[in-house]
């Protein structure tokens, strides 16, 4: 059908649709090539589904409009979420305020007595030779060990 020159000529050159359809139909009835093409198309048409065969078609508009709406407006947090946010902020502010008031108006903390023993070694010698001393402070405040050892040549004090 597509190879028939007459059919191509009629399709391209005739201006009015009604004429074109009429003449093409007449040509197809007479032309053996076009007849074969038509028969093949008709046969293929039996296998494929036509628009009439597919039944009722879903209206795509509502879902389309919904998708567009979603794209336009970014997701707003829900009222509950927004309320929770406000509640959380208010709670934190109240706790901060309470802490500040407690710090400002509360009694001063008791002074901690200084119980540490201060030991300072000026110099140390063993048999008139300079020695080095190491002071060990134990966890027990009342006990302190002092380790004295002879100073060898090359050691650093």
């Amino acid at each position: 059908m597509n190879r028939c020159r007459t059919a191509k000529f009629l399709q391209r050159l005739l201006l009015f649709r009604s004429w074109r359809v009429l003449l093409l139909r007449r040509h197809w009835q007479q032309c053996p090539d076009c007849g074969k093409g038509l028969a093949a198309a008709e046969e293929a048409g039996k296998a494929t589904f036509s628009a009439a065969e597919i039944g009722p078609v879903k209206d795509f508009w509502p879902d389309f409009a919904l998708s567009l709406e979603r794209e336009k407006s970014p997701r707003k947090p829900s009222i509950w979420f927004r309320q929770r946010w406000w509640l959380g902020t208010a709670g934190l502010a109240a706790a901060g305020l309470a802490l500040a008031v407690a710090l400002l108006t509360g009694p001063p903390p008791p002074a901690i007595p200084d119980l540490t023993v201060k030991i300072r070694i000026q110099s140390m010698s063993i048999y008139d030779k300079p020695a080095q001393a190491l002071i060990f402070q134990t966890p027990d405040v009342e006990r302190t060990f002092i380790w004295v050892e002879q100073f060898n040549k090359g050691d650093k004090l």
Partner: protein
Amino acid sequence: MTDNELVTSCLQGRLDSYRELMARYSRYAMTVAWNVLLNREDAEDACQEAFLKAFRNLGSFDSRRSFKNWFYALLTNLCLDGIRKKKRSRELAVRYAREVPVEMHMSPDPSSAPAAFQFEWLRSLTPKERLALYLWSQEEYSGAEIAAVLGCSQNTAHVHLFRARQKLKTAMKEA
């Protein structure tokens, strides 16, 4: 109004024009998708996505071209992508869940199936062959137009059509 006038109007911000286009092509789009996917639900999903994608890409539409062919090409790509994804998920299902029986062929919705034999015949063709056959037999598309929709050369479109017809003849003889 012509399709391209509606597109222009839509690009100027009139959403009703696109609604008109959707109303005009819903049934055709559904028929194309149905013939390619052989399943109503998948066809509806593909159409819905195609309308949204077409709307987003309306700015890139060349008004000298036919909107119908442009839209069909877009829809076809989505349908073929859908088939690829489905095939991949089936392969994964077969690989990792051998104990689960997996149906390896498209399952048409029997309640809305116009005729079971049509599904049998069409199943013997590839999706591109089915589409070429549909466009040629139902919408009277020429080879060049089929090529524009399939995004291939005219010769390839003719090959798809030729093979589809050959396979169909064989399937019809066997039936």
